[in-house]
């Protein structure tokens, strides 16, 4: 598994705030993470934990107002994306950073042909003329497994099924051979068999094309099957981060542990009821000054109410933002980790 090299994407202390009528909503709070070339980073967390907002903040896709990226640094290939002109971001979006969104039924423009929509980034970023772009678009459609690609270029989105449309979205995202692909719950809106097909396709494409992928999902099962490394988000923060095996085998944060317990087991004893995490995720009106999970946490102590736990190293390439140590059942006392890439700079 490719995990060596300088990160393509290195995010430090990213903060995003929404200005709403009822005050500020702190959706992303000092998020730091990195992504190595060719790596597949899974991002999990329940609804509202700030996964989408984090990824959209990186590349200026949030509407502003109401959104404001308040601080941080996003290094992409040595360039800080938070400090470049809008024009520069547009050169990168769709060219070197591709996006796939959740709902393929609404993510394509209904009045333009699929071919037109795939050719758009090709013509803009690769400077292709119409004919070259068409040839490449047909190749892309074939690549994502749409039969009869050449003919289907002149079809409209409504003539495709949901799974097919998501393939088209992937084709668009991959059009210009991006170094990073951000997939925001690309399979959530699809039924299970189609989900599996899209997952297979993505694995395939990553092996073939070697881009780094950020895969956002609710589905831990998917993560286990596809990711190299996992990042768990809660309340707009990264609460745990580890290689996939380590995370599933040795979860440290109570939230991660609770998440893993919510997966119903097919093979083991059948539990009486499905596990749920009691309580509601927080909506933060200010930057957190205490642990955001403490209200739902059975291990919460006084310290959690007056101090926001930093990300602590808990194992090789593994960190968690929690004072509690599951191995001992006691509070731990370690130094905050260096949360950036281990061998960056």
């Amino acid at each position: 598994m490719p995990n060596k090299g300088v990160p393509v994407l290195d995010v430090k202390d990213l903060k995003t705030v929404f200005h709403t009528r009822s005050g500020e909503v702190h959706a992303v709070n000092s998020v730091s993470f990195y992504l190595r070339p060719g790596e597949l980073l899974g991002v999990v967390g329940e609804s509202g934990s700030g996964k989408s907002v984090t990824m959209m903040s990186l590349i200026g896709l949030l509407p502003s107002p109401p959104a404001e990226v308040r601080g941080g640094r996003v290094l992409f290939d040595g360039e800080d994306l938070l400090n470049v002109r809008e024009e520069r971001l547009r050169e990168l979006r769709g060219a070197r950073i591709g996006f796939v969104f959740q709902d393929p039924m609404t993510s394509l423009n209904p009045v333009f042909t699929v071919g037109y929509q795939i050719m758009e980034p090709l013509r803009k970023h690769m400077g292709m003329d119409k004919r070259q772009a068409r040839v490449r678009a047909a190749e892309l459609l074939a690549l994502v497994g749409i039969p009869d690609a050449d003919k289907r270029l002149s079809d409209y989105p409504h003539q495709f099924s949901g799974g097919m449309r998501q393939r088209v979205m992937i084709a668009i995202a991959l059009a210009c051979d991006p170094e990073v692909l951000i997939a925001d719950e690309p399979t959530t809106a699809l039924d299970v068999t189609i989900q599996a097909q899209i997952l297979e396709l993505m694995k395939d494409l990553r092996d073939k094309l070697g881009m780094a992928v950020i895969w956002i999902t609710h589905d831990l099962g998917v993560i286990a099957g596809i990711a190299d490394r996992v990042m768990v988000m809660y309340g707009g923060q990264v609460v745990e981060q580890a290689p996939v095996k380590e995370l599933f085998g040795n979860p440290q944060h109570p939230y991660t542990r609770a998440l893993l317990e919510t997966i119903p087991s097919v093979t083991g004893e059948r539990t009486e009821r499905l596990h749920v995490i009691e309580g509601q995720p927080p909506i933060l009106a200010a930057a957190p000054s205490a642990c955001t999970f403490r209200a739902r946490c059975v291990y919460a102590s006084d310290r959690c109410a007056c101090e926001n736990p930093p990300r602590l190293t808990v194992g090789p390439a593994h960190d968690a933002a929690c004072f509690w140590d599951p191995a001992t059942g006691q509070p731990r006392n370690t130094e905050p980790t260096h949360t950036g890439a281990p061998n960056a700079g």
Partner: protein
Amino acid sequence: MFTYTVRRLLLAIPTLLIISLIIFLLLDLAPGDPTAQLPLTIPPEVKEKIRQSLGLGEPIHVRYFLWLKQFLVAEPLHVFDNLFGTHFADGMQRVISWQTRSPVADIVAQRLPQTLWVVGMSYVVGVLIALPIGIISAYKQYSWFDQIGTFISMLGFSVPTFFTGVLLIVIFAVNLGWFPSIYDTTHVVDSWDAFVFQVRQMIMPVMVLALYNAAQISRFMRASMLDNLGQDYVRTARAKGMSEKVVVLIHVLRNSMIPVITVIALGVPQIFGGAIITEQVFKVNGLGQLLITAIYANDIPMVQTLTFIFAVLIVLFNLIADILYGILDPRIRYD
């Protein structure tokens, strides 16, 4: 699409026949006598003769079919004869105005240019103003531009044209003397100066109506743009690195125009209906004014013909709107 169009056209025939019957019956049953205005000194027998000569003695169904024949056969043939110098319609009875005793169609043909120039132009101007205003208002929602646009649309929509018309006359014709207060329909454009005069006399009526049209259409455009700006495909277009110009003017606009084009098409028959009030205020003797005077004078053939022409146009533009919808929105297929 083609079979759909043909089917719709065929369906329009019974619709129009029923409309024509209703128009005919309504006007025929309405109280009013074309000879009522004649001096009382005319003896009743003579009045009766006049009524007979107008064809009023016949039973109602005979008169209806006669009118239909005149309207649907004689008149089109006359138009054809006029265009190609043929003689198909010779000897056929035409629909005659009771007021002027000349064929209704000829009068309509005389009045049409005034209406088309003033009312049609105002519609075009209104649409041309409305679209950019709607687009910008939506894109910059709640900006000062949007607020001012909203305010002006509300004014344009709620202040009646007879008020804005008179206001403009008082300001620009009476006080400033920039434009003539009355539209001179006999004016012939044969030189540059005459053209300038034509433009000057058109400006006020066109502006009054354009404001009214623009108010409506810009609101539609704004609402439609707002609907689409929040859609997921807009985010996709941005994620592809498309410029804001492309995102708004190609991706969003193309979708937003679908309902707006329909509204614009449905508004076209109103042009031919003339803007009755504005035509009165500025003394433009167009179709609207023609209709009003015909109603006052109990000129039933004229009223019937004009109303029926409007009905035909409305049916026709409904069909055109539907077809445009099908062309613009690939999801709609009529076959």
